[in-house]
Each structure stands twice: as structure tokens, then as C-alpha cells.
């Protein structure tokens, strides 16, 4: 399967009379986009804000971040099974508005979370501070239940991203990247001497506010399965995960998965990147046993020499992570796991809730308990009072001058377990 990504570099977003992309600027007709999103009967009203890199803006609570993309050729549409019809994506040509994102914000439950600071010390911890963001704030109809509210916001974000992506359909790309994965047989014949490597991506699937969708299927109801890596780039996997801001995978992460990109960069040179095994992180322990059995079985079936395993979330998924690692190692396949840590504010406590001697190659996204001070911003988009009741915030986090003292876990993407981080110890 072969996919061309046409990157259209975006320098700015502005509101305008006609929605279009021109000379690297996205112009948005607010009324038109607002009318589109308000078609959902569960949404009472929608408002929009723009947040640019370097501006003194704080966005909270952030639900999802989504990159605008459009299928130019090839099968299917972006976000198949969600807002496009079900069809296998990942081939042909996709245009990307690179440097822009849709950010959905709003309170679904009282302790909601996720901060993006566009400048200051907090901005260094989130990759989304470097993007031109269209923030979509959806107000639900009164009395809407949490699960329906989450779904309405999730779909509004996807629709807004697709609306913006569509503006780039006929624009000449500034750069083109090509990603190709051969069939198993072709790969073995083409690269007989290279080690075969697969990527095992664990997806958050515990329940309300902790879900992930694959071609529209709630992944907690699926067995472990296989994707071509390019399917991820066309939105086959979509986030419905609104909890644990620092180490959840937003839809933007799924579209731009750095493990996939790094494996492609070495594909055909140092290794043969055979594909992506996606698995879940259910609460029911028998599901964990079954799913990790299947991860190991599919890795064996692919005939790989090594896998990279990425986790999503903390606690319950630590058990899935170690099960995947142990069972794949037991097949004689080398593993590297990517996780993050809740090691206490001093970093001295046990990092994970599970461990095993076979997990001997570990990459960390950082310590989510670390305390950080965020100075006041000129403008807050969303709900500033959420700071006291945000995961990683605490009673008294919000100071009278508007600054907040919180744990790193409040910042969207700060300790991401795909390695999509701005800071490293390298």
C-alpha cells in the first residue's frame, strides 16, 4: 500500500467572508462552519477562537486536537466509519494543512482537563503550541448526558477538521512525502537481509471518556488486528479519549504517529517495517489476556524479529503493556516499550503499576507528576476555573494573579507515549 502526503504549509488562520486557503493562510467563514456543526441536534451553539504560536493564550480544557486533511485520490475519505463512509484508506494521495489544527474545548464532566499554552514555559511541553489552532467550543443542549456530549464534541472536531482539509483539495503542495508498505511476500523478497520489525500500538479502550475508534468501531469490542501504517495517516484511528491529557493520544497523534514515521525512515535501509498491530486496553482482565495473546500471535504470524510497543494512559494499561511485552518476548521476538511515568513529584517512586524482567528496553515520555508553574496569560479560551479541578491540578492550583501550579499531567501531550514530545534528555 502506497500513500502520498501533500503538505501545504500553513502560516496563519484568519476569519474571513469566504473559506479558502491562500498563500499559506486559512481563511474561515465562521457562520458557514458554525451552521455545519450546529446541524447536530445535541449542540446548542458553537463558537470559534484562533490561537497562534507565541500568543499569550491558554486553552483549557482541551478534548482533542485534529489535523485538517483531505483525500485527493485513492479509496475512501478521511476518518472512515466516523464521518466518511467505510472504505479502506491509506492509499493514493492525501493533502495535509501542515501547521494547523482544530482543537475542541469544553467541559463534559466537572474535572475535565488538558491545557495548551501558546507561549511561556508550558508551551515547551506541548507540540500543539507550535500550531495555528482553530479552537472549537461547543455548548451542548441542556441536560445532555455525558456520553452523548462527548460524542457530539468528538464528531464536531472531526467535521471541522474535514471542512478545513477540504479547502486544501486543489492547492499545490509545498512538499510531498511518500510512504509505502509492501505485502509480506514482496517485503521478504525485497529485503531478505533486513530484520523485520512491527509496531504494536495499544489503544485506550476502557469506557466513557476513555475510548478509541477504528473505522468507526469501538476498539474495546474488537480483537487485536493489523493495519497498514498509512491507514493511520488517513484517520482510520480516532481518539475518543478525554482523560489523562499528558499521555493520551489525540487524533493528531494518530495521524502523525512518530513511531510510524521513524520506522518508515529506516524502512528498506536498516529494517523492514512490516505493519501495525493495534490492540486494546480493556478493564476486564480476560480481555487483556485475549488481546495480548493475539498481539503475540500476530507478531509471530508476521515473522518479525522485533516490535516496538507503545502504551496509552496509566495504571490499568500498565498491565496490558507488560502482558504484551512478556508474551511477545516469549515468542523469541525482541521488544522495546514506550511508556511514561507517575513517579511522584520527586521522581523517586515506582514509575509503573506493573513490571517484568522481560521489559528490559524501555523508553519514557517523562514524569507526569512533576510540578510546573504556568504564568498568567492575557487570554483564556475555555474555562479557567477548570484549573482547580483538572487532573494534575489541585485545590488551590489557580492563583489570584491567574497563574497556576500543577503537575505536568495537565498539559496536553506533555508525556505522550508515542514519543511525540518537544523536550527530550537526548
Amino acid at each position, binding site marked *: 500500500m502506497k500513500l502520498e502526503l501533500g503538505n501545504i504549509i500553513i502560516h496563519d488562520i484568519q476569519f474571513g467572508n469566504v473559506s479558502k486557503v491562500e498563500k499559506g493562510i486559512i481563511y474561515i467563514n465562521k457562520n458557514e462552519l458554525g451552521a455545519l456543526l450546529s446541524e447536530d441536534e445535541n449542540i446548542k451553539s458553537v463558537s470559534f477562537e484562533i490561537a497562534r504560536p507565541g500568543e499569550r493564550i491558554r486553552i483549557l480544557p482541551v478534548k482533542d486536537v485534529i489535523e485538517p486533511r483531505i483525500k485527493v485520490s485513492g479509496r475512501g475519505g478521511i476518518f472512515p466509519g466516523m464521518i466518511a463512509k467505510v472504505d479502506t484508506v491509506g492509499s493514493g494521495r492525501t493533502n495535509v494543512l501542515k501547521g494547523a489544527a482544530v482543537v475542541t474545548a469544553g467541559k463534559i464532566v466537572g474535572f475535565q482537563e488538558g491545557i495548551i499554552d501558546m507561549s511561556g514555559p508550558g508551551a515547551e511541553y506541548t507540540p500543539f503550541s507550535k500550531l495555528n489552532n482553530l479552537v472549537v467550543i461547543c455548548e451542548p443542549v441542556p441536560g445532555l448526558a455525558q456520553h452523548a456530549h462527548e460524542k457530539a464534541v468528538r464528531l464536531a472536531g472531526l467535521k471541522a477538521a474535514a471542512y478545513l482539509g477540504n479547502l486544501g483539495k486543489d492547492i499545490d503542495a509545498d512538499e510531498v512525502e511518500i510512504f509505502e508498505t509492501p505485502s509480506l511476500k514482496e517485503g521478504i523478497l525485497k529485503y531478505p537481509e533486513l530484520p523485520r520489525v512491527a509496531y504494536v500500538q495499544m489503544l485506550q479502550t476502557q469506557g466513557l471518556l476513555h475510548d478509541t475508534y477504528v473505522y468507526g468501531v469501538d476498539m474495546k469490542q474488537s480483537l487485536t488486528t493489523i493495519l497498514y501504517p498509512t491507514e493511520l495517516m488517513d484517520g482510520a484511528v480516532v481518539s475518543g479519549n478525554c482523560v489523562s491529557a499528558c499521555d493520551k493520544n489525540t487524533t493528531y497523534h494518530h495521524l502523525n504517529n512518530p513511531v510510524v514515521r521513524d520506522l518508515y525512515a529506516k524502512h528498506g535501509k536498516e529494517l523492514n517495517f512490516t505493519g501495525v498491530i493495534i490492540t486494546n486496553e480493556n478493564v476486564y482482565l480476560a480481555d487483556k489476556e485475549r488481546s495480548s495473546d493475539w498481539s503475540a500471535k500476530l507478531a509471530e504470524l508476521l515473522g518479525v524479529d522485533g516490535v516496538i510497543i507503545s502504551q496509552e494512559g496509566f*495504571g490499568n494499561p500498565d498491565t496490558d503493556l507488560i502482558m504484551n511485552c512478556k508474551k511477545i518476548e516469549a515468542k523469541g521476538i525482541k521488544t522495546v516499550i514506550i511508556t511514561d511515568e507517575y513517579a511522584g513529584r520527586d521522581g523517586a517512586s515506582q514509575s509503573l503499576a506493573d513490571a517484568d524482567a522481560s521489559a528490559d528496553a524501555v523508553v519514557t515520555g517523562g514524569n507526569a507528576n512533576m510540578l510546573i508553574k504556568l504564568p498568567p496569560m492575557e487570554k483564556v479560551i475555555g474555562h479557567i476555573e477548570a484549573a482547580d479541578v483538572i487532573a494534575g491540578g489541585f485545590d488551590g492550583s489557580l492563583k489570584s494573579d491567574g497563574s497556576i501550579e500543577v503537575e505536568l499531567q495537565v498539559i496536553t501531550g506533555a508525556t505522550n507515549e508515542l514519543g511525540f514530545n518537544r523536550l527530550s534528555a537526548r
Partner: protein
Amino acid sequence: MILLTNNPKVQMGEKIFCDKEFVEGSYRDVLIAVRDKIHKGHRLLSHPLSGSVKPNETPYKSVIISRNSAGMDLDSLKIIEDSIAAYDKFMQNSMKYGYNNQESLLADFSEIDYRLIKAALDSASCR
């Protein structure tokens, strides 16, 4: 299957059909009650650290275990002991949202715990 919970919404839940034992106490008290059952030979069926809502944030916890008891299951014991250790680590810096009796927050924490254990029960019932 037996459900141990300190969440009134789960205890009262009309759509939750298994046997329930209400624990009058904290999140930690539920974990300890589960550990005691594991000592008596019950097996753990759902993960005690379900949910990304941290132990120092939510006051509610629901866990399902096997109805039958046999010899002590060491995998269950390891998971519950690791979970209690993780709970104690988080409580060194309690954020106490739910513990501050903020009504709207308590309702949301209760709803999340209910939904997560319902997802586990749905898995259990259709297998």
C-alpha cells in the same frame, strides 16, 4: 461474579445484574476488601486501577471478582497488591476534588466509575 463497590450509583444500578457487596468506605477500603477476597481464593476479573482518573482524584471504585473461590490466584494477588501500592503513592499528594464534597464533581466521578465497570460487565456477560 461479585461486584465490590463504594459507588452508590453502581450499587443502585438497575442495569447491573451481578451480586453486589457495598463497601462503606474509601477507594482504598474497596481495594483492601478485594485483596481480602483474593486471599480467600476469589479471582480478580476487572482491573482495580480502571480509568485514567487517578486514585487521588476520585473517591469511587468498583471491582469485579469471581464468585467461586479456590486456591489463591497469584496473578490476582500481584495486581491488587501493585494497585494498592499505586494508590498509596498517589495519595501522598491528594488532590481531593471528589473528597471536597463538590456535588457536581462527585456525580461525574460516580458516572465515570459506573460506565467503566459497566464496560467490564458487558465484556463479562457476552463471553
